[in-house]
């Protein structure tokens, strides 16, 4: 049988190149305000060619410092630009349900902030917020995008006043890059590291790949338990993101189990 050789159709490289864009599913609206999810920032950063994202605890929560955790995150773009920022978490700026995970919250906040700088997103990351009722309304400036764009803009994205005061001066929202040397200069004096409350593990998005997703029964149980405890669906979503770094619907089965336990004792 004679084979006919077909010339493979090739798309031009130019046509294949897609401009990085924040996926709308990573934007959630709470009380009329838009927030970007950490997972969305991470996704966008990878589209931008994120080369490195590291985080280190610079203060472990202890009795002496009022149980405040501070982490520094550093991101490096494919062009070698280095961005740095910090995130903090203490019992007054996290939801009560996750007050045992301060170091992880601080880590996520630091990474969210540094990624926002890197990809030029003005929208506040949901993970930066403390208790929703406390934060939304007064302190959150109107986002520059209304949930249908990519979130790039000039909003200052300052969702956490307390944290902003601690942020390294000169590297916020200016779009300026920071060199490694500058980064070292601006590094605050770390507190004496004590025994950590939680391992400084990097919380990653779950519920995809080979991890079994939350089951139908688990989903029903989570909704039922939260309703019984007067937790609104918005607050529930925010809790899922804060604890597991991912939207409720994408929780893994294991995370859903632990979320149910959390809600049961809330």
């Amino acid at each position: 049988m004679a084979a006919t050789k077909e010339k493979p159709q090739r798309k031009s490289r130019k046509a294949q190149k897609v401009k990085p864009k924040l996926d709308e599913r990573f934007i959630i609206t709470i009380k009329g305000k838009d927030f970007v999810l950490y997972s969305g920032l991470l996704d966008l950063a990878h589209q931008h060619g994120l080369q490195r994202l590291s985080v280190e605890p610079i203060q472990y929560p202890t009795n002496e410092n009022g149980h405040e955790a501070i982490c520094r995150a550093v991101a490096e773009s494919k062009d070698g630009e280095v961005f740095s920022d910090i995130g903090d978490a203490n019992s007054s700026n996290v939801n009560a349900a996750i007050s045992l995970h301060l170091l992880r919250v601080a880590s996520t906040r630091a990474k969210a902030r540094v990624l926002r700088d890197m990809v030029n997103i003005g929208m506040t990351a949901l993970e930066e917020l403390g208790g929703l009722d406390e934060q939304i309304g007064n302190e959150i400036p109107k986002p520059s995008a209304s949930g249908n764009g990519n979130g790039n803009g000039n909003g200052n994205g300052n969702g956490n006043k307390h944290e902003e005061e601690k942020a390294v001066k000169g590297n916020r929202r200016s779009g300026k890059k920071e060199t490694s040397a500058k980064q070292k200069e601006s590094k605050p004096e770390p507190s004496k590291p004590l025994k950590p409350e939680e391992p400084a593990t990097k919380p990653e998005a779950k519920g995809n790949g080979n991890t079994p997703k939350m089951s139908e029964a688990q989903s029903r149980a989570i909704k039922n338990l939260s309703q019984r405890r007067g937790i609104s669906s918005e607050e529930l979503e925010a809790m899922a993101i804060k604890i597991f770094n991912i939207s409720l619907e994408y929780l893994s089965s294991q995370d859903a189990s632990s979320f149910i336990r959390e809600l049961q004792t809330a």
Partner: protein
Amino acid sequence: MDIMQLRRQPHLSASSINDYLQCGLLYRFSRIDKIKSEFKSDSLELGSSIHKTLADFYQEKMIGSKLSLQDLHASFEKHWKTVEERDDVEYQEGEDFETLLKKGKDLLSIYHEKLPDDDFKVLAIEEPFSFILDGLPPIIGVFDLLEEDKSGTLIITDWKTSSKAYSTDQIDKSLQLTIYQMAAKSNGYGDRDVLLRFDCLIKTKAPKFEQYYTIRSEVDERKAAKKIVKVWDAISKGIFIPNDGNWKCNGCAYGEYCDEWFSKEGND
């Protein structure tokens, strides 16, 4: 496993333990002295008929079909009719066979309307169980409904008919549900995630149906086990303390026996 057979042997159950914790004397009259209660309450009988109706409903679900509202009502009427001829059922003021027939149908209408659709697979309906805690007689009971979802999570449901909505404590601290989880784990479901649920038909003026999901931790199981051991220890020693301040005393079917016990001289 036959529940009648299980009941012939010395045993404990969630309801007997709850009876003891509620009132030691109630436990003694009903389970040791085996005194026939003075009457059966209409609420108990209504609940029992609804229970049988829901079992019919899930029997259909098990084979892949869904009972229509009309069928559900017919099933209830069939079960409730068996109460009509009985003279041991005591109706509360303003209630009779007909009013409760209507009430039962109204409750089931709400149930039929509000029950969320799900893909859960029915594993068993009214399934007897028995398990052992060290040094105690078997703990026996019946799961009203055992289901699993696609991930294998086990959902244990108990059907309730109640005069009011359940409180958080009634759900999250229910010893009955803890015992059910322990039973499931001892009967081949040890490797499963277990969710517990009350499906509650509420006899308010406008009838309501509510589902309450809950879970139990290993700590809850350990606490329950310790409590059960202590209950059995007290029963074995013949300690039956009356709880005559209980709000349930008003509707207790052993009121006369209780009064008699109090009026007797001596410690027995």
